[in-house]
């Protein structure tokens, strides 16, 4: 194992090291919990330099720090350097030396062998005109998937659901670059001709991966719904809520206003948290952290729920199959610890509640 891949980023790494501007530090959701510089973006850039110069050797402690990164991109929003690429590469650098979490190894092996991240992939298939890629998380949640399909139908969309395999984000993010290539090949074989059309997606993370790593023409389904809202007559919900921007949907895909427009169309009184849109902070579910350090993921989730409480709101809405359960766990724990409860709702559920059934 050498530093070749890392050396390509040397200029970026030294630029960060020599400046230390610190824009990435205090709002980093992991730093807020852990409290050591190494967890921040500039801290990890220092680790990168340490590896380049042989100041430090890969170690289990370093592994823990790198696996503690949510890859949420908050630091990237505050910086023009390619931080996330470098952090992913650092994980890869360690994984190639056997420094990777068994939990991640098992999941990646499962994706490689079976094509899915979770057991019991959904049997849902549907003839239709618009390809809809469910992704592993929704494959494992057939009830939620059926609800979404129903909402899409009520919006006048006709989803086509065929055999699919995992997009492989998890493998790439956790440092398994070689396996990711195999997963990509498998995906292309499985998804067939649909890959040439515009594909609707449900999971923000899959959407980013399919767009950036596969070059596919993907559109998150919530955008398609937003485009049709003015033709619908939703029931008005009496709800005061804040909207949590999922990192991949918001910061990385730039989809900020569509979910908000839908919420307003449903009559929801929207209150913004201080960290919103491009500078939203992670729910705690990113980067595979929940597998290796569930306590950290939970604390990050609790902090995000506290953000809602800070603006006097007791309902959070989001539109991501990772954010929703992660925030709900944080809210539940906070309810036990501090006797305050914030309800976390999925935007698809609100749409299901508000949209009239098809005739």
């Amino acid at each position, binding site marked *: 194992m050498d530093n070749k891949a890392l050396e390509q980023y040397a200029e970026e790494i030294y630029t960060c090291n020599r400046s*230390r501007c610190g824009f990435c*530090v205090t709002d980093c959701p992991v730093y807020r919990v852990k*409290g050591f510089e190494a967890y921040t973006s*500039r*801290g990890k850039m*220092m*680790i990168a*330099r340490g590896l380049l110069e042989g100041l430090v050797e890969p170690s289990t402690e370093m592994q823990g720090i790198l696996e503690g990164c949510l890859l949420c991109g908050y630091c990237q929003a505050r*910086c023009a350097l390619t931080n996330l690429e470098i952090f992913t590469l650092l994980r890869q650098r360690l994984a190639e030396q056997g420094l990777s979490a068994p939990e991640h190894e098992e999941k990646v092996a499962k994706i490689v062998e079976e094509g899915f991240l979770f057991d019991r992939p959904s049997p849902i298939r549907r003839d239709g005109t618009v390809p809809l890629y469910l992704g592993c998380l929704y494959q494992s949640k057939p009830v939620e998937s059926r609800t979404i399909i129903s909402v899409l139908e009520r919006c006048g969309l006709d989803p086509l659901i065929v055999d699919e395999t995992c997009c492989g984000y998890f493998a790439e993010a956790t440092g398994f670059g070689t396996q990711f290539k195999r997963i990509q090949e498998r995906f292309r074989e499985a998804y067939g001709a649909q890959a040439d059309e515009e594909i609707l997606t449900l999971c923000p993370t899959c959407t980013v991966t399919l767009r950036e790593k596969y070059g596919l023409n993907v559109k998150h389904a919530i955008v398609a719904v937003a485009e049709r809202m003015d033709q619908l007559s939703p029931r008005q919900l009496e709800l005061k809520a804040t909207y949590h921007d999922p990192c991949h949907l918001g910061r990385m895909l730039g989809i900020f206003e569509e979910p908000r427009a839908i919420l307003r169309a449903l009559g929801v009184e929207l209150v913004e948290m201080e960290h919103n849109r491009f500078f939203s902070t992670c729910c705690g579910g990113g980067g595979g952290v929940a597998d290796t350090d569930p306590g950290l993921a939970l604390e990050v989730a609790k902090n995000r729920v506290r953000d809602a409480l800070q603006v006097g709101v007791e309902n959070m809405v989001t539109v991501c199959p990772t954010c929703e359960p992660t925030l709900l766990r944080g809210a539940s724990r906070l309810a036990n610890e501090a006797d305050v409860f914030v309800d976390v709702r999925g935007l698809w559920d609100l749409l299901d509640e508000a949209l009239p059934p098809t005739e």
Partner: protein
Amino acid sequence: MDEQALGLAFDELRETLGERATRDPTHRLGYSRDWSPRHRSHVDLPDIVVAPKTTAEVVEIVKIAHRHHIPIVPFAGGTGMGGGVAAWKGGIAIETKGLNQILELDEANMMVTVQAGITIWELNETLARSGLWFPHQPESKRVCTIGASIGCDNDSTFGLRYGKILDVLSNVVMVTGEGEAVRFGRRKASFTSSGYKLLDLIVGSEGTLGVVTEATLRVFPLPETRLVRGFVCRSLEDGIRALEHMLATGLGIESAHLNCRQRLHFYTHAYREKYQREPEIPDWAEAILFLSFAGDRDVVDFTLDKATSILLEQFSAEEVREQEMVDGWWASKHSLEFIPFKQKWPDSQRQKKFGAADIGLPIGRVEEAYQRFLEIAAKWDQDILGMTVYNESPNKPTASISFALFVDDSTEQSVANFYNYVREMSAMAVEMEGTMSSYIGDGDRLGGFNELEHGASYSYMRRVKEMFDPAGVFNPGKKFESRWITKP
């Protein structure tokens, strides 16, 4: 460093702090440098890193360090430009940003008491919810803490109206070398004529007298309106005199930053690159004066009109028409709504890095110093960014000056040349009846050499240090020693 002592100290720290004490090299690396110019591969590794959350924990850390004769280096934002947090004698780096709680907001008395590791940004986010703000705001405020501002006595964008940190600081709690947490200063009064002003000793002491863990600060109502404008002047002298005149008329100006021709060139180039238009800056412009005005709208409007008429009619200045350029400057100073490293010119720290001599001068010597700056920078083969005069004292022009460069950090020699430049600029400041440092601090640059400025009083400084820190554990290698600049 005595390995056995370190081992014993670490065991005790671990007992006190659990996982918030570490010797792991990966963590130590995170505290190995600040923003100061040094070779790109330079590193100062502390031996241990601790992350306390309370004053009581800092007391225990200091006692342990004292018992085992191990240096303590408080680390805050890490954005210092003088090596103040460089642990070049090893020891324990204290990550202070975990001390980030607001302990009391006393709105009736317009005071806030905080743990000193809170960042200025976080403090202001919280205060804003009550319609208040804390106006001591260096450009590094996203990560710069209250404790760091006290330690470095750094600059503030709003210095012309609110001064430096000492002007808005009532007291601190500092853990001294005896391992005792002592409150220094007055409680919530704005002044005292009683006793010695020990608070003044602590401001700018760079962690060499103790670890500041709490501070009580004056806060202010958030202004209703703020306007920011730029004016090009025919000389630096004109800019200073115009400001003196504006203040003498009774105008309240929130901030005033005067930039030289090179700095003006920096802003015009950035404008040209971003907007693909040529700014209408006259050839005669030798300086650009940026001003901000804040308060109620009618007062702000009047102040701006009056200031504009003074500048235009009495000093033949011209208002900058390209407000985007002015707003760009403001973004870099206050709103911080920009993405670091995005700008392309001259190199945005991708090849070189910012570095500065931060001397303070009597206001009548600025033009002369500027000419000498050009000569000294050329002599040491330095790439000039330009000069900015900051006003850091309430309601009077003062010259806290950044003589800034792009430092080549690719070789040890080019970095050494930068410090030769700093040495020569510092000597010039003393010769001109000024000061070597007006906002960076001595850091690991000026210690020893600063005797040139302080003369006979220097020995009293040594005695002060010995009194607060008898074991010599607090941030050694600073104030009285330098590894970059030798004694005269």
